[in-house]
Each structure stands twice: as structure tokens, then as C-alpha cells.
């Protein structure tokens, strides 16, 4: 009698364990590949813009009306054509299908519409609009000095980036050019200018980005030194350079057109500590 509850508990534990065990792995060919909906891997291609109707005169005007959607439609069931010409069965296991012979080009019915702007959006997304790092003089290691101009510049200097994609005789070139750089110095002041110029003694060049800090901000100052400003961070002022890129595209081929895309902004930041030099009057000078 006493043993039966123990046995029941044991069975329950075993059942629970086996259920959890059974649901904890996948053994399907395809189902084991169903993963997270988002991945951090690069090379992602998403075309998210809507597609205007194909321009007049486009050779692909009568093509497919499938919307550009990034290629991940999931709600619709697959169109399964039992005797589709393209069906290819890999049988027996691990013997690849013989490559299909190159058939002559089909007329326009099989050719989807070409939309240069949609292609340009995709290409623009692929542009890695790096702005480099913020360099400073005095450097962040040496710390800036209140009352003296600190120079800031982007290294390397961001330059125009161009990428071309050729697809079925349509060639789309996307260019991203540096529009303006907004410098935010962390102490409440900012300016809009260029990428800055590296420090050189003598006259200050027109393109130089300089700033004079008035209040010190060293690591550990915040919370300890009542004279520092509220914007002083744990490791100094946060200096930020936000680069605005103007993006344009040019398409040639069956559809020839040009246009602009929405601008993009990328930015770089550094922590910039600023120290101060105090003068003290000492008595008994010269004696």
C-alpha cells in the first residue's frame, strides 16, 4: 500500500521527463531548419518598397505582378504543380540531379518586371556606410584641456560609395555621397560641417572642426565633482559625429531612369575626457 504512491510518483516523473525529452529535438529534414525569424547574419537582402507599375516601354511590362516583398511569403500555401517541368527529385539519397541543359531564352512571359528603384533600394541597403572613427587632438588618451581648442575629425574620411548591380542587362548604380556631418560635443554645443581635418599647427583651415570646452569632465568626475556639468559622462564627454548620406541611383538598360532615395545617417562616437589646468599663486616669489 505504501509503495503504490511512490510508484505513481515515479511513473509521473518518468512520463513528464519523456514528454519534455520528446519535444526537445527535431529530426525532420526541413523542420530542423525552421529557426528564429530574425538572424544576425549579414548579406540579408530585403526589398521593402512598394512597386510602382512598370514604366511604359519597359520590355518587361507584361511580366509578373508579384509584389516585391523580400521573398519571404509565408501565409500562402505553396503552389505545387505535380507534373511541373522543373520538378527534380534527388533520388537515391545524395546523388545530385543532373544539371539541366541551358534552354533558349523564353519570351517575356517568364520574365518578371524590372523595377530599377526597387533594385536601387536593395543595393542601397547593402552599402556599408562606415564613417570611420572620431580622432581628436589632444587625443582622448591625453585628454582635452579646458580653454584650449580640441580638434576633431573622422578617420578615415568618409568618401562617396558606389555600388553597381547588373541584372539581366539592367544596370543599376547607387551612389551614397557625404552630405553633412553634425558634430555633437557632449557639453551641449554642436555644429554642422564636414568630416573635419587632422590637426596641424598654424592657421586653422576652413574645414577644421574645433571646439573649446569650458568645463572639465574626467572619468570619475560625475557624482564626485560638483563643478562638472550634467552631460559629463562616466568616461568623459560623449562626442558624436552623425554623417548624413545623400543617396541617388542611375539605371540603364531596358529601363533607363535616375532618381534619389531617402537619405541615411550613420554615426560614430567617442568618450572624450577633458581636464583643466589651474594656476595657483604662491607666496614668497623670488626669495
Amino acid at each position, binding site marked *: 500500500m505504501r509503495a503504490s504512491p511512490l510508484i505513481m510518483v515515479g511513473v509521473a516523473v518518468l512520463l513528464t521527463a519523456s514528454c519534455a525529452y520528446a519535444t526537445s529535438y527535431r529530426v525532420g529534414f*526541413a523542420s530542423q531548419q525552421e529557426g528564429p525569424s530574425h538572424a544576425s547574419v549579414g548579406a540579408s537582402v530585403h526589398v521593402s518598397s512598394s512597386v510602382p507599375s512598370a514604366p511604359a516601354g519597359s520590355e518587361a511590362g507584361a511580366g509578373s505582378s508579384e509584389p516585391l516583398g523580400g521573398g519571404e511569403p*509565408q501565409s500562402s500555401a505553396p503552389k505545387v504543380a505535380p507534373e511541373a517541368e522543373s520538378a527534380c527529385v534527388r533520388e537515391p539519397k545524395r546523388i545530385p540531379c543532373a544539371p539541366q541543359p541551358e534552354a533558349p531564352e523564353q519570351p517575356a512571359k517568364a520574365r518578371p518586371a524590372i523595377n530599377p528603384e526597387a533594385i536601387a533600394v536593395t543595393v542601397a541597403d547593402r552599402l556599408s556606410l562606415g564613417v570611420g572613427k572620431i580622432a581628436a587632438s589632444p587625443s582622448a588618451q591625453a585628454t582635452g584641456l579646458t580653454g584650449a581648442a580640441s580638434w576633431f575629425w573622422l578617420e578615415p574620411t568618409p568618401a562617396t560609395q558606389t555600388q553597381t548591380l547588373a541584372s539581366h542587362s539592367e544596370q543599376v548604380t547607387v551612389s551614397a555621397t557625404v552630405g553633412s556631418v553634425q558634430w555633437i560635443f557632449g557639453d551641449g554645443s554642436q555644429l554642422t560641417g564636414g568630416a573635419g581635418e587632422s590637426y596641424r599647427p598654424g592657421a586653422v583651415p576652413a574645414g577644421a572642426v574645433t571646439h573649446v570646452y569650458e568645463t572639465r569632465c574626467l572619468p570619475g568626475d560625475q557624482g564626485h565633482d560638483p563643478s562638472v556639468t550634467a552631460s559629463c559622462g562616466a568616461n568623459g564627454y560623449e562626442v558624436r559625429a552623425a554623417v548624413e548620406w545623400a543617396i541617388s541611383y542611375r539605371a540603364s538598360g531596358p529601363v533607363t531612369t535616375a532618381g534619389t532615395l531617402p537619405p541615411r545617417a550613420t554615426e560614430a562616437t567617442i568618450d572624450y575626457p577633458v581636464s583643466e589646468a589651474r594656476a595657483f599663486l604662491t607666496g614668497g616669489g623670488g626669495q
Partner: protein
Amino acid sequence: MRRRLTYSIAALALLIAGCGGSSTSTTDDAPSTSSDAQRQATPMALEQAARTAIEQNAKVSDYVLSNNAIPSWASQSTAGPALAGLRGSAAQRKRAGVRVRVLASSVTIHSIELNPSYLSATAAIVDEGRVRVYKNGRPERHAITLKEPARVALHRIGNETRFVVWKLTVVK
């Protein structure tokens, strides 16, 4: 009598050698890629590239199922959520002490649709086969027959006439 015995031994040796020969044709060889930057990216060539990616992805899937590990050549045909899913499933099986022996597998491609941008494609496929599951080294009594219709999203690699399987959704 002795001669017959000799012949039998020789035949047996040949058989064993033959079996050994076939079993060494491991699937760990990197599948050839369909990358051909010189070829013009015609819809036909792109569709063929998508087809190749699906077939290579099936090989990757088989390999991962059998080995609970991602082969070095997986990224030639598989990326993004599809690769992450494989990695996660392999890790789960490993943790659970589960090994899978693939007895047979095939992939049927029913349709491939190129996106109008020519930068992505979708395909309808059916993965079929039989597997035997081993838990902690012991085989399950029955082999499992699988038939999984799936929707595949493929992404094109740059300007190349090459695709990778990006996302795979089993159609319930």
C-alpha cells in the same frame, strides 16, 4: 573443397572491400558551387542557381541530421535563419543524446519563383525520407517516415549567379 573455400574467402574479401569503398564516399566533401560571375544573370540561370542552392541545402540538412554538426561548406548554400535553425536543432539533439541515421532522403522542387528584383526567390519543395532515431546510442524500434512540404526563401549573393537558402518554413 579447399578451392571452393578459397573462392568464398576471395569473394567475401571483395565484398568487404566494396562496402568499405562505398562507405568512404563521405558527404563531407564540399559541394561545388554554382557561382559563375561571368555568366549573364538570365532568369533561367538564376532559377538554376536557386535550384542548386536548394539541392545543396538538402545535403547540408542531411549532414547535420546525421552528425549533429554544421559542415564547413554549409554557408555555400545556407545562411540566415535557415542556418541558425540547423545549428539550434543540432545543439538540441546533442543535448538530448539523440543521433539520427538517415536511411533515405530526397527533395522535390515543385516550383521556383524569382522575385522581380532578381535578388531573391521563393520555392515550394517537399523533403521526404526515412530516418532512424538513436537515443543514447539505442535505436528506436521503428524508423520514421518523413514528408515535409516547405516554403523556401532564397537570397541572391551580391551580383553573382548564386543563391543561398535563407529561410525555410514547413507548410503544415
